[in-house]
């Protein structure tokens, strides 16, 4: 881990204002922010570890546990809500056996909800990795997951 971190740090100045780019690079490397990496980032940017954790938990973009190989995002925005987004979410939850924010035991899927993905015309919508699915029917969900997920 030390070598990877050193490589990330070599791309930045060790100052307070570099903290967020450093954290983004760490997340790009590991998929989440391991506690040891946050402590290393604190030393590198010369801030307290509690401040690193404070900053990273303030933004929704940072993750604190390893994510699955596939990211499933179910839209819960207004249009999707009206068109049955909640039923889609329920179905995904029961199929994968996890709740939003969790990862399946085999590390294959991570489930999240989003407030809107800008595909309101296709509501209810769902995103698996980079594929966006519109007018999602609950009974087709397993197909979508298996089709897009590795």
């Amino acid at each position: 881990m030390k070598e990877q971190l050193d490589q990330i740090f070599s791309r930045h100045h060790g100052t307070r204002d570099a903290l967020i780019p450093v954290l983004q690079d760490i997340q790009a490397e590991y998929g989440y922010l391991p506690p040891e990496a946050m402590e290393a980032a604190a030393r590198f940017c010369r801030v307290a570890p509690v401040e690193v954790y404070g900053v990273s938990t303030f933004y929704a973009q940072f993750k604190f546990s390893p994510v699955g190989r596939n990211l499933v995002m179910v839209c819960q925005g207004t249009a999707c809500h009206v068109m049955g987004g909640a039923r889609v979410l329920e179905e995904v939850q029961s199929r994968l056996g996890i709740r939003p924010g969790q990862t399946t035991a085999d590390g294959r899927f991570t489930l999240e909800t989003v407030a809107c993905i800008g595909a309101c015309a296709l509501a209810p919508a769902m995103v698996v990795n980079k594929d966006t699915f519109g007018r999602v029917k609950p009974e087709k969900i397993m197909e979508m997951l298996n089709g897009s997920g590795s």
Partner: protein
Amino acid sequence: MPRLVIDDLQIEVPEGTKVIEAAERLGIMIPRFCYHKALGSAGACRMCAVKFIHGPFKGLQMSCMIDAQDGMVVSTTDEEAVAFRRQVIEWLMMNHPHDCPVCDEGGQCLLQDETVSGGHGLRRYPGRKRTYHDQYLGEFIAHEMNRCIHCYRCSRFYQDFAGYRDLGPMQIANRVYFGRFRDGPLESPFAGNLVDICPTGVYTDRSSRYKARRWDLQRVPFLCIHCSLGCSTVASARYREVVRIEARFNESVNGHFICDRGRFAYPYANLADRPRRARVDGEDASLAEAVRAASGRLDQISMNAGPDAVALVASDRCSLETLAVLKRISREKGWRHPAVFPRPDLEHKTRRAVSRLDRRLAVSMRELESADFILAVGIDPVHEAPMLALALRQAFREDAGIVVMDPRPVSAPFDFDHVAIAPAEIGGCLSRITEALSALQADSAAQGKETRRPEAAGPLRADLDSRIAGIVERLRGSRNPVIVCGTDIVRDSTPDRAADLARLLLQLKARPCLFFVLPGPNSFGAVLLAESPGRSFSDVVQDIEQGKVKALLVVESDPFKNFPDRERLERALDRLDLLAAMDYLPTSVVGRAHIVLPTCTVFECGGSFINQEGRVQRVEPVHEGGIPVHQVSGGGHPPRVFSHEVPGGEIEAAWRTALEVAGYTNARDNLSILKIMAEEHPGFARCRDIPTSRSFRVLPDAGDRPPVCEETGDRAAPEAADTLEVVLVDRFFGTEELSGYSPVIQNADSEPLVFLHVRDAEPLGIAHSDWISIALEGGGLEVRAGVSAQMAEGVLVIPRHRLLEWQKLGPVPAQIPFGRISRAGKE
């Protein structure tokens, strides 16, 4: 000055006063959580909403965020404001666990008070509450995050006010969490204040957990006696046991806060092995019998060997009452005057410092906060006078420059320039600064001359010159500079030199500018009452060895703690015909005394102390004394054994017992003691007129009298290049006597380190946290080394730590040859 109307009452307040503060001056307490006088406004809790009816603002506004302005008309009771506040408290209470019955804050909880005052009685929200994991924050503070209402007081105090970084806010929205990155003890020595400032029970005092509700406690405005600053506290007792210390606001000393040593040292008063019964030759006796025995034997020795064969020993933890009585009885009986200080140099430096302080020069700690340049010499603030570090931090936050001239690896919660020089060089630097400054001020040189005396500025290193020039420039350019001077590690003449510089600055800036830190809580009082020149304990030891002293009465003092040569002390004490000890601590001297006369702690008998700026502060007892109920009952409650007397209740204040030992049987009431104090020092006459809640300074007015300087031969700097100079120092925990007996502090204390400079350590092959052994004639010492580049070269910094038998070093040498220090094999 803006004039405004709040609830139909008019008030004029200084520019910049917040409306919430203006209302408080009228006696109207607007509900608040995040607002705190010392921390300022945050606008986080929305609880202090009031209605602005006229003026530059209209409608509902937060009274902590708006400065009072002319023509404002404010209502705190407007229906809209009341309804808003009721809503705010309802949503703040939404996730609160309602665990008041098991919460230590219950009964002294701002959240309880504001819930009631906000009019929120019935819970309407039926949903699930948000919950958190709590953290382990060390031995002092318990963490219960579920109770949090997100007012940010803790992180604002901890990070902004006190300057420590390991506790802070994390997460977002209603998941906001205050804590550390990982579990672990809080690093700040001021963390105990979280207990006081948290408006609910997130941070509670572990040492007093589950012991009492506030209304069950005997609470008394009290005084901290764990360093020379004399901070104000509130002491609480229950069932004859001190259970809690809190900070008390004091405008001129400590402000709102205290340090953790002051807060958690109190268990020394509750120790089960505290001397509670008088003893004569190893047998338990009543106090009266023991007093009779002591009195008789002392008189006998006085008669046979002359009164000069009886010596008194006291310490700077004795109250002014005790010291005055000891002075009185030693004079009337012809006994030797009490020796208060363990070493002659400490006595000398304290006396010099006290004699140079006057009303125009002395700065209080709160005044120090408004200084714009501070030169601190021979002091490690966090360790020697912790609240001074917090005061310096406040000056730093207002952009004051701070220079610390000290050999130790000083670390403090503010930025400063560290001039790391050996103790011998500090005095020379001060003289050079004084000379340069007065030479620069050609106009005022004529007046400056009279206070200057020929200085023998020693040879200084070349690299120091530019730093000294920099300090001179900054002193010149500052409006309100202050000199802070320690008395522990510096050479004998340094306090005088600091005072010389301060006198010059007083002429230039016309502002008080001198702040001394003294060795102990009553050092100031001890030198006021001392004969001149005073004796130190080492003189007494010498006289015992020569057979001049046959009897020793040791009053609230433990020579074993401070005397540098333990074996020599043991031999000397064995020679005595009589060793009588009066104390409330189970000290080594109490263990070997022929006659033991237990005394009361200051919690049980009160007392007066003079802090380092000459402020006399008097406190009343917290409880009446006696053995704590749970010790009498074996932990059960209520006790099953009953008697007419309070168990252990016959013990009295040291001054009362001392008077009795000297044969004064009818001068033991409170009025007589005030009379004795006034007779022993005219400055104490005011104690009779001033209530205990008020303090006063005993400082001479005479600013113009030329100071009487004593020339003293300073110990020279070590000349041989292959030696290290030994510097014995105090630490935050572990070196102060009373707090060393506190179990909670013992648990929290870390291992003591002996520090040396990295360039001194390298040739010896010593790295940081290696075990080293120091071999001397008197014995060896194995200890962990700290290696630092941020300290003076050529010194070996040894803490007088409880766990470190530095007394084994034998007669502490001025210097230790490199050859005697080596890496130890121990891992």
